[in-house]
């Protein structure tokens, strides 16, 4: 009986996973279609990839997405880290104020945050574009960075910085040599979250962008009205890159573990 239940639950898991991967496989499959159709596979071709790489708007959208994600990640990580460290040593009132305010963009629906930015920029007569989009991205990324660093700081011995300074560190050295190394995990996690938030963002970008500046999401949104197989190619490429990165990040440590001789049976077990 137990065995049949295990078989049932693994079948169930594979069905759910199939649901998750169906559209991804579908879009990758049809990105190699020789015709425009999304339902008939008429032959293998890489022409949509060629077309995509020669499409300036797509290439620029990718560029904008990456540049914004990189800058927003860098800035929000630095600001978030510094602020989190400051918060850990601040009065409770200040800490609460920042935490609560940070919750706003995270609890608010994206669209509300987005129109907030839009109203803000227009009221100040700031013409929207790359800079406004970047500012908005930085603004919604920082709370996530702080959120992922704070728990690590809380776990830190509160006397750590004092101990470092007692041993002759300046406050800055204490931060660099003692605090930051210990919250590194949180900082990296925060940076990753920030990057993926920025990379995937659509709603906030849509409302804060200006002439000639689109990221991948906006490009897809404004070009799906007509059948546009270059979007399949673009999607497929995102799938390739994400998969490759995740495999590198996740599987390599697993293989390394395996070499050390841990749990050989694990991978075969899900089947």
């Amino acid at each position, binding site marked *: 009986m137990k065995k049949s239940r295990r078989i049932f639950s693994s079948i169930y898991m594979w069905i759910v996973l199939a649901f998750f991967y169906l559209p991804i496989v579908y879009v990758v499959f049809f990105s190699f279609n020789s015709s425009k159709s999304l339902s008939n596979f008429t032959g293998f071709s890489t022409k949509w990839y*060629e077309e995509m*790489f*020669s*499409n*300036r*708007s797509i*290439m*620029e959208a*990718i*560029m*904008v997405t990456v*540049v914004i994600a990189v*800058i927003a990640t860098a800035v929000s990580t630095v600001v978030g880290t510094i602020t989190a460290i400051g918060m850990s040593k601040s009065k409770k009132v200040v800490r609460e104020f920042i935490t609560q305010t940070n919750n706003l963009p995270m609890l608010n629906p994206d669209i509300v945050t987005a129109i907030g930015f*839009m109203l803000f*920029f*227009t009221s100040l*007569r*700031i*013409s*929207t*574009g*790359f*800079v406004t989009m*970047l500012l908005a991205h930085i603004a919604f990324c920082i709370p996530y960075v702080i959120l992922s660093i704070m728990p690590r700081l809380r776990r830190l011995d509160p006397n750590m910085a004092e101990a470092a300074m007692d041993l002759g560190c300046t406050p800055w050295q204490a931060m660099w040599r003692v605090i930051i190394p210990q919250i590194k995990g949180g900082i990296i996690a925060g940076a990753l979250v920030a990057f993926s938030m920025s990379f995937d963002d659509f709603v906030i970008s849509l409302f804060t962008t*200006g*002439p*000639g*500046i*689109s990221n991948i999401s906006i490009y897809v949104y*404004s070009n799906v*009205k*007509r*059948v546009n197989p270059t979007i399949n190619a673009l999607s497929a490429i995102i799938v390739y890159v994400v998969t490759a990165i995740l495999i590198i990040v996740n599987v390599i440590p697993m293989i390394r573990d395996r070499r050390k001789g841990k749990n050989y049976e694990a991978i075969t077990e899900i089947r």
Partner: protein
Amino acid sequence: MKQLQKFVKLCLGSAMALSMTACSSGSSSAAASTTQTETVDAQKEYGCNAINVYNAGEYIDTAVLSAFEKQYNARVNYDTFDSNETMYTKLLGGSSYDVIVPSDYMIERMISEDMLQPLNQDQQTNEADYDPAVLKMRDAYDKDGKYSVPYFWGSVGLVYDKTVVSEDDIKNEGWNILKDTKYKGNIYYYDSQRDGFMVAFKALGYSMNTENEDEIQAAYKWLREMNDTMEPAYVTDEVIDGMVNGNKGIAIMYSGDAAYVLSQNENMAWVEPEQGTNIWSDSMVIPKNASCAGLANEFINYMASYDVQLANTTAVGYTSVRSDVEKEMTAKDGDYYENDAYTVREDGKNDEVFHYNEKLTKALSDLWNKVKVQ
């Protein structure tokens, strides 16, 4: 901030260079035909070398943009909008464009709100070749083309699948076929307050420029009934592929999109109901806050030129504003020979041009949202 912008431009520039080389192998006739023209250095000539262009979606052969960029050693940032209203709101939101392509009534509104700058007439050289009917329409909202140069023109009508919809029904019912329950769930309704209401007004025999509250309410009621009984899909540019593939039986379409659909699917037919329709034209204008007006003027003139109009009308199916291009397209070996939708009806006695009317626009926008929300 300046530094940052510079950096980004640099990045974008390199990406562009990469794509440009690939682009140059593009197949467009426009690109080929403009190569003989002498190149101009925009930076030297106009003090700037980049323009932001804001046009309706599916409204251009993008190859003409690369050709322009090459010829003027400039950069064109090309964005598209769904509706005139979206475009207008975007401008209010602080986006600064150099060339936009709104419809007649929107230009009327923008002129009245002092949002446009006059064109440099010295740079405009194509007026002589324009269709007189188009110029007549233009003069109604922009006397002598002080602010605008027409881009495309057309009407609104019904595209229907001859294998699904009986020709008699269409002829007899006109717009009211959209309420014929025989075709329930088989309808694409155009998602635009102006066109949406136009159909209702015309079906009821009213003017689309009415200010009469009763007539507006009657039209709203017509639309609600249509919405509640017919389960239409509200679409914009999706309708093009939808009808090419024959997904639904009837669609409200602009004549240009219809011409393209007809050219792709021989089962499709076009009709402009006798009850009358909206005759419209879209024109190129330069907003007050344009940052590169000189090059914008040049761009407008370029877009109105024979080669470019030919390339664009070939690609998208909208009717050219140039008589010579229009003639070529409808000639025996033209792309739109005997294509009903390509030639704009000029003698419809119930046909109207839409005029901007703040009160009406406001009322309609609210009512239109309510219609769509089933």
